[in-house]
């Protein structure tokens, strides 16, 4: 309990003094996870729309497959990315190992199933009447898509928040493909992992608290948007 209190005090200290190393880690964690969420969104929103609105054989199976990957362990994604992007791997020519870029790519792969699956679920929750009305008013496919997106925006936002949460909170992938390099690929989760293993519990708790605070702020901002 004492360590928890010490951790709280340390977190306050680090924030108030704008400790440079913590600020750097915070900036990097946000940059990587926000970028990954955005990229995944750009891919998964249209893709989700395509899957939802079209009828094709194997649609049920595809959705089942997507939902299966909701629970893919982060280290499995890490392993997969490692095998492909390792210098001697098929995509090794890009020399991306142990860089923030590969962490973004990995996180996109990690959260894509969740985002895709939940976007499809969000669209499914919109009354068919909306689609029918829009079509009868002469809307084309894109306009119908946007109308449904409008109706489903709360559920879609929830999906985006969840995807972001999964991205910023994962350790396995960040550690395996990022390498936790000080000043280059160190993010909150890998830093907490390292500090805990070094026995510096106070700093770990402080970093954990700051990470939760940042997530809170991100949530508040996105929720504010949603309310309009």
């Amino acid at each position, binding site marked *: 309990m004492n360590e928890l209190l010490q951790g709280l005090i340390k977190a306050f200290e680090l924030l108030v003094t704008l400790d440079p190393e913590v600020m750097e880690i915070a900036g990097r964690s946000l940059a990587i996870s*926000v*970028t990954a969420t955005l990229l995944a969104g750009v891919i998964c929103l249209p893709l989700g729309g395509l899957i939802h609105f079209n009828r094709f054989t194997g649609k049920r199976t595809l959705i089942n497959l997507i939902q299966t990957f909701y629970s893919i362990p982060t280290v499995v994604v890490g392993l997969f990315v490692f095998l492909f992007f390792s210098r001697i791997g098929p995509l090794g020519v890009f*020399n*991306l*190992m142990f860089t923030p*870029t590969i962490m973004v790519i990995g996180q996109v792969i990690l959260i894509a199933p969740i985002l895709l699956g939940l976007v499809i679920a969000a669209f499914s929750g919109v009354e068919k009447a909306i689609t029918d009305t829009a079509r009868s008013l002469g809307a084309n496919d894109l306009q119908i898509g946007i109308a449904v997106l409008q109706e489903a925006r709360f559920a879609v936002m929830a999906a985006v928040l969840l995807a972001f949460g999964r991205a910023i909170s994962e350790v396995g992938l960040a550690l395996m493909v990022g*390498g*936790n390099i000080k000043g*280059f690929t160190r993010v909150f989760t890998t830093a907490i992992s390292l500090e805990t293993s070094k*026995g510096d519990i106070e700093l770990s708790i402080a970093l954990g608290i700051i990470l939760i605070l940042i997530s809170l702020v991100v949530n508040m901002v996105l929720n504010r948007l949603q309310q309009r």
Partner: protein
Amino acid sequence: MRKAIYCLLSTIALLALLAGFVGCAGEFKIATTTSLYDTGLWSYLEPLFEKKENVALDIIYAGTGAALNQGKSGNVDAVIVHDPDQEKSFVNDGWGIDKRSFAYNFFMIAGPSSDPLGIKDLNPADAFKKIAEGGMKDPGKVKFVSRGDNSGTHGAEKRLWAAAGYDYAKDIEKSGKWYIETGQGMGPTLTMANEQNAYVLCDGSTFTSYKGKLALVALVKKTAAETLNVYNVYAINPDKIKTTQIAIAKDFINWLISPDVQKLIGQYGGGSLFYPITDTTYPAIPNLADNMKPVQ
């Protein structure tokens, strides 16, 4: 108003996108063993090399086995390890070149201050024999925590079990609840041993740098061949990995064995953590003169 917020968010998002893609190449990467990393030696040396060579030094840490794998995968340009058997294969298979030893210390056995088996000041092999016997007899009270991760420390531990007369795979591994394998670095392994009041094999430097954080005490500290721990650096063979940054790797190796850095290594942590390889207090390697020649 809403439009303004969306514009702002899009700009932030775009910046985040760009920021996320920074830093794709031009870094010199090394893989080091966790034992060295946990002592903080690299944080100490890193800025010095970066300034001298004007390149960003990226340090990945992993057990020796994993570090060598990173070398074979071409993800790092140099490796720093300490396992004679694995290193021999690494060199014989043509992966590692320009080997240089640059520091050494000794493994020691730590354990609970109560020392239920009374191994204090015994020979390392004898101590291990007592630990195995005690553990198999009373696994509730006597425990040993192993790295269990193919690291240099794990290799030294296996050699000591052999010296104590045990077949590691048959007699020790999976022989009971007394033998705990963490599969993690020296730091977490020490923490686990601390929690379990167990015996543990550790390199002297890491144990010293954890002073004050552990209730464990040093029980067996012998400077001998079976506890000798030599740290070696290798460059990755450009014939095997065409993209390895061999020039910087050679500079790095020569920098590690240079007189200035050797002195710094000896002074690090108040001088009690590492012996620079040039320190002849103990004959750590067979041919010091050859080792000190810069690589070409």
